[in-house]
């Protein structure tokens, strides 16, 4: 099994700001917001530094400290805020100067002095820190001009780059909790009608209409009901749920409050992966602040509505993202799925009616309530409304988090926003929906991204993970990777999934090792269909998808492996050999000294050779050779 890091038991969250007022009724909230916005002149200068995981790895915390020191030294009072992920992780650490939204990329702590002297004092733009458009070489100063942002439609992620996630006041000043106030003035049925009219569909995978799900739960008898936020984010290449919780935790809470009010739940849980310490910390802090101000607890804003939320840590099992397994885990049991019906809306947590939604679904709710269902439904296609968030990774220039209206073409997403494929390589496929999803090849790049179109092509919207593969990616190996993941994560409760995924994986491993046999493809197809039809939960029912979809579009690559014993992308170790090109070898001995297997022979100044029987195909020689003399065949 894939192991996870040790459980981060976080320190107690920071106490809420002592000056924040107690909110007893709806009017108190409006008054507080008015006071906050009056004190905070609009267009007041401020600096935000991205504090998302990517930028932190690049050293954004030191950048922030350096900027704070520089500003303090000049007595400049503008705030320097650490925010959540801005989305454009590829160019981090990001520093944005407001109100102009001047964006500096790849900022180092050493740059702080110059930023303060030139830009803060002198109003001059530092060209060398600007984003450079790769094609034209043009330097673009403002966030809004950069193609990565220009073609997006950031609704759920809009405040991620401006808010201090640890400040309730920041969120309220930006209009936060106004949607809750609006909802509390409506009847629960009217709130549900609004969510239904917006056309919002679940963003956790299946795409079930959210309003309809709430309605089902509300209609159940009984007064103990629960709401759950599914923040297990198991897709091994996606991090948008994490970024929302890290960057804007109050919006998730506000969505849950509105949902709980509509459904009639007084208790909520956020089930969050324990690999996400920062998200856990920010969410716990947000809960403490909301409790301290009266936005969580009893008689919220004088409405008579009570609601409390607790955080539960997931202990590292992909299957716990499945709703029935997740509830078993909250109850303290082994996280195995159970057959449905009964659905969670009928009998969920501790047998009570329960409504479970994904982080992105909850976070969209305040926007819908605040701006109206019509506003939200303007975006998208007739059957898929609003925006989707993708984490776009892999062989792509602009790795990051992207929010686009449903219905946008894959081509726009990958080439206009994602900036295309690095190194001038050719696009091969986009794998959408993680281990349950499928790939979309170049000939379908103009497909509209919506639930129905993707399903027709054998992929799914799923989690929103989008991995780009280029000509150097072996699709058989890619399918094997996902099959290995699902096989390891299969809980083992039902036979088709437990045994079937093992059989599929073994076949794929054999093919990649060069021992494929004619008939393997038919076997994979038959097994895949059988597993899909007969597995108990969504994990098994979708596990064969990556294999089936690569078979559908890249059959020739499978045939090359099986029939011709060739890996066209030169990835599968059993099918490649390393060799030294004599005309390029200078006899420098660097490869010989580095080879961990001792497979390279040759005296100094003499042409070297690799012994294929000893070579482990680790590729180290190729990476150390300065003369490009090592080739793969």
């Amino acid at each position, binding site marked *: *099994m*894939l*192991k*996870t*890091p*040790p*459980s*981060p*038991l976080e320190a107690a969250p920071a106490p809420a700001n002592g000056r924040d007022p107690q909110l007893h009724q709806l009017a108190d909230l409006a008054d507080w917001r008015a006071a906050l916005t009056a004190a905070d002149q609009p267009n007041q200068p401020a600096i935000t530094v991205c504090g*998302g*995981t*990517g930028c*932190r*790895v*690049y050293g954004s915390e030191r950048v922030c400290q350096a900027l704070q020191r520089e500003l303090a030294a000049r007595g400049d009072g503008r705030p320097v805020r650490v925010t959540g*992920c801005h989305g454009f*992780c*590829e160019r*981090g650490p990001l520093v944005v100067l407001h109100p102009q939204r001047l964006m500096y990329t790849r900022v180092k702590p050493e740059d702080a002095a110059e930023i303060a002297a030139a830009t803060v004092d002198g109003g001059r733009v530092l060209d060398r820190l600007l984003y450079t458009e790769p094609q034209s070489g043009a330097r673009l100063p403002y966030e809004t001009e950069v193609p990565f942002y220009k073609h997006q439609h950031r609704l759920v992620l809009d405040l991620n780059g401006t808010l201090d996630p640890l400040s309730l006041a920041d969120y309220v000043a930006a209009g936060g909790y106004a949607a809750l106030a609006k909802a509390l003035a409506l009847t629960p049925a009217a709130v549900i009608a609004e969510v239904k009219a917006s056309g919002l569909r679940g963003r956790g995978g299946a795409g079930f209409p959210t309003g309809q799900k709430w309605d089902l739960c509300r209609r159940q008898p009984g007064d103990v009901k629960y709401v759950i936020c599914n923040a297990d984010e198991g*897709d*091994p*290449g*996606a*991090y948008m749920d994490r970024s929302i919780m890290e960057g804007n935790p109050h919006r998730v809470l506000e969505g849950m409050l509105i949902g709980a009010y509509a459904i009639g739940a007084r208790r909520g849980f956020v089930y969050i992966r*324990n*690999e*996400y310490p920062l998200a856990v910390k920010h969410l716990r802090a947000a809960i403490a602040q909301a409790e301290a101000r009266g936005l969580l607890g009893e008689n919220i804003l004088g409405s008579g509505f009570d609601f409390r939320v607790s955080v*539960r*840590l997931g*202990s*590292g*099992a992909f299957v716990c993202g499945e709703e029935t397994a997740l509830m078993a*885990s*909250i*109850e*303290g*049991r*082994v*996280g195995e799925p159970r057959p449905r019906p009964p659905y969670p809306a009928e009998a969920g947590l501790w047998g009570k009616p329960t409504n479970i939604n994904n982080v992105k679904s909850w976070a969209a709710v305040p926007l819908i309530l605040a701006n109206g269902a019509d506003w939200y439904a303007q975006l998208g296609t007739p059957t898929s409304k609003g925006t989707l968030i993708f984490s776009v*990774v*892999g062989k792509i220039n602009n*790795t*990051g988090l992207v929010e686009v209206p449903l219905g946008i073409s894959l081509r726009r997403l990958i080439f206009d926003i994602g900036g295309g494929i690095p190194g001038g390589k050719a696009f091969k496929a986009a*794998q959408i929906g*993680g281990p349950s999803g499928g790939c979309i090849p170049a000939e379908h790049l103009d497909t509209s991204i919506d639930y129905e179109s993707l399903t027709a092509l054998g992929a799914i919207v799923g989690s929103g*993970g989008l*991995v780009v*593969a280029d000509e150097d*990616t072996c699709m058989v190996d*890619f399918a094997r*990777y996902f099959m290995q*993941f699902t096989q390891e994560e299969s*809980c083992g409760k039902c036979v088709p999934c437990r045994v079937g995924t093992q059989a599929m994986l073994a076949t794929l491993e054999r093919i990649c090792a060069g021992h494929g046999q004619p008939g393997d493809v038919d076997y994979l197809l038959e097994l895949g269909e059988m597993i899909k039809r007969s597995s108990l939960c969504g994990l098994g029912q979708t596990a064969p998808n990556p294999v089936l979809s690569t078979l559908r579009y890249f059959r020739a690559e499978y045939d090359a492996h099986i029939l011709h014993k060739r890996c066209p992308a030169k990835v599968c170790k059993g099918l490649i050999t390393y060799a030294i090109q004599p005309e390029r070898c200078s006899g420098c001995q660097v490869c010989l000294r*580095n080879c*961990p297997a001792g497979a390279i022979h040759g005296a100094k100044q003499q042409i070297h050779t690799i012994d294929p029987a000893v070579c482990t195909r*680790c*590729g*180290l020689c190729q*990476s*150390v050779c300065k003369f490009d003399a090592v080739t793969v065949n």
Partner: protein
Amino acid sequence: MLLPVGDLYQLIDQEARGEGSVIAALEAVQARCRYLPRAALILAGERFHLPLADVYAVATFYNAFSLKPKGRHCLQVCMGTACHVRGSPRVLERLATRLGVSPGATTRDREFTLETVNCLGACALGPIVVADGEYSGQMTAPKAEMLWKRLTRQAAEAQHA
């Protein structure tokens, strides 16, 4: 880290008194001890009125729990999709060769545990390796080699000190 039985019980009892489940109690023990000692499973079963078999089932189902003591230092290689397509298998392979353990295992001297994780949220910098909480991005096999050398040197120095 080995804890006296009384301390173990206290950790478990604390969760049981709150609204925590047996999972939360085991998480607390895992966080303190870096593994689940036998005694903790027995104590948790008694405190939560569960058969030992049920506690064992939970302890072996979830990836976050380990029944064997982990090493002093933890090396995690991200095997998420983004890191995979950018070459994390080679990084993992190099570390496994150098440490002489397979992923998930601990070196015999209990200095290092080599683990794999899924997406750490820093895909733009993949492949990612985390050594005791410190992230290194854009890893390659040669960079993994350097990291391993540095860590073993530090570990040796710490032993002398």
